[in-house]
């Protein structure tokens, strides 16, 4: 059996998205800035794509800027809000401890420039309480940036309520919706969002293309200077094929969010229940407020990379917050942020499902993880110490 269960890392492009790109690669290749026919055709496509994205997000077309992905959108949103704030002497930014690195590293850069960065606690649930935001906002707050859904543990934040608080207090609110889009309903008007980031390859669109939504009253700062593309706010010849593929995927991914949830949530819950039966394991992040397809567990006594490699041998593609897989020395900052100790965080597993997963595959996932965890524990001196009581367990059985 082959199961791709790493849809939070990237997704398989849909046939529809690929087909939407091809004509712009083969025939309508003109530069949208050109006057002649195939340039103007490309320009029309580009502007209709902008309208279609705006319709999905519920905003105006001119509030949509196409970028090279989620990271660029995050960087530009945060830098822009910081520059706007600094002009009014506002240098306080509120975020959370478990944002994506595209957000956290940009905030670090601003910190070096003299901004004060306040990272809210996300609790053991991986959830922010809107009250925390309310309490943290000050006169000199330039920006609140809080992700819509977390990429590792899949928790979904109370964005609408946070947005309301920011709107009432007149503070710019940005949300990284890279993991949320296509999985839960996102509406920038309803949710009081001022800026929002998307990345196409997370919802069956192409890699290397994304969206920054910014309300029309927000003056963006360029990250990339040059030509006057994207209303002068993002230079570079437009990636028209990529944008067309993204829009096709975006419409497909959002056209039946309720049906998607209805189908996927029972399967996800079955997976959670199955993995929960493995002794000394625990779900990461709140049980309820989570993406329909994302499940993240910690297993005591094993290390994530070996787990992934053995699952790969069984045809299962998954990911882990283990330091070995992150390329850094520490395990996932997300798992540490929800209070997992290092030794447990190393033994984490994220399974992120796609809509076409079957019940049979869920069973296979549960059985396989169980087998591999047992196998690895049997050769783990750490596990031996745990069961022998030499070291204390972190989780209940």
């Amino acid at each position, binding site marked *: 059996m082959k199961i791709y269960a790493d849809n939070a890392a990237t997704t398989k492009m849909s046939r529809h998205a690929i087909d939407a790109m091809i004509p712009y690669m083969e025939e309508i290749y003109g530069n949208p800035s050109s006057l002649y026919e195939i340039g103007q055709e490309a320009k029309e496509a580009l502007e209709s794509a902008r309208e279609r994205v705006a319709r999905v997000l519920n905003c105006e077309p001119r509030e949509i800027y196409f970028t090279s992905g989620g990271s660029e959108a995050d960087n530009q949103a945060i830098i822009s809000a910081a520059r706007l704030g600094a002009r009014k002497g506002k240098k306080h930014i509120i975020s959370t401890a478990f944002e994506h690195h595209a957000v956290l590293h940009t905030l670090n850069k601003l910190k070096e420039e003299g901004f004060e960065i306040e990272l809210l606690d996300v609790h053991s649930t991986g959830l922010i309480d809107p009250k925390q935001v309310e309490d943290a906002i000050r006169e000199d707050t330039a920006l609140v940036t809080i992700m819509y859904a977390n990429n590792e543990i899949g928790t979904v934040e109370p964005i609408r309520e946070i947005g309301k608080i920011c709107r009432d207090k007149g503070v710019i609110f940005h949300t990284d919706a890279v993991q949320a889009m296509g999985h839960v309903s996102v509406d920038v008007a309803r949710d009081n969002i001022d800026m929002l980031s998307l990345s196409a390859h997370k919802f069956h669109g192409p890699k290397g293309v994304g969206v920054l939504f910014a309300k029309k009253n927000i003056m963006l700062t360029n990250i990339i200077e040059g030509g006057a593309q994207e209303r002068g706010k993002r230079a570079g010849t437009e990636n028209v094929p990529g944008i067309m593929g993204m829009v096709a995927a975006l419409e497909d991914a959002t056209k039946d969010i309720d049906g998607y949830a209805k189908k996927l949530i029972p399967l996800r819950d079955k997976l959670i229940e199955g993995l929960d039966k493995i002794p000394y394991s625990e779900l990461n992040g709140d049980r309820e407020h989570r993406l329909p397809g994302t499940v993240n567990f910690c297993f005591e*006594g094993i290390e*994530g990379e070996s787990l992934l490699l053995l699952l790969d041998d069984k045809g299962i593609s998954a990911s882990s917050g283990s330091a070995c897989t992150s390329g850094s020395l520490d395990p996932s900052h997300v798992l540490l942020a929800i209070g997992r100790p290092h030794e447990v965080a*190393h033994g984490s597993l994220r399974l992120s499902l796609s809509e076409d997963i079957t019940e049979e595959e869920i069973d296979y996932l549960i059985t396989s993880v169980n087998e591999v965890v047992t196998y690895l524990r049997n050769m783990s*001196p*750490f596990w031996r110490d745990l069961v022998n009581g030499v070291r204390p367990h972190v989780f209940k059985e």
Partner: protein
Amino acid sequence: MALYSDKVMDHFRNPRNVGVLEDANGIGEVGNPVCGDIMKMYLKINDDEIIEDVKFETFGCGSAIASSSMATELIKGKSVEEALSLTNKAVAEALDGLPAHKMHCSVLAEEAIKSAIDDYNKRKNGEK
């Protein structure tokens, strides 16, 4: 150009000498769970100072398990002296190389062996 060489994957998938040696007379453990790897070596050394048997237990990534497995193979049947001269580079080379950021796994294997022999020496000298 895959993450690991075929040798590493073979030793990871089919680790040699996994388990506990009940009659070990030298046991070493290195690493720590906070860093994500622990290696435990069990040696049975006979009177001629030959390593008659060896087993390991490892908590860690693919290359940690493969390094342990390879290291046990390299010292099994060898003298204590020979085992002491085993370097981490030799372990990595025997595995057809390790990615740069995984070299520390081979270091761990070298250290686990040294630690187990140290334990054996201490027991022999009545320090334990």
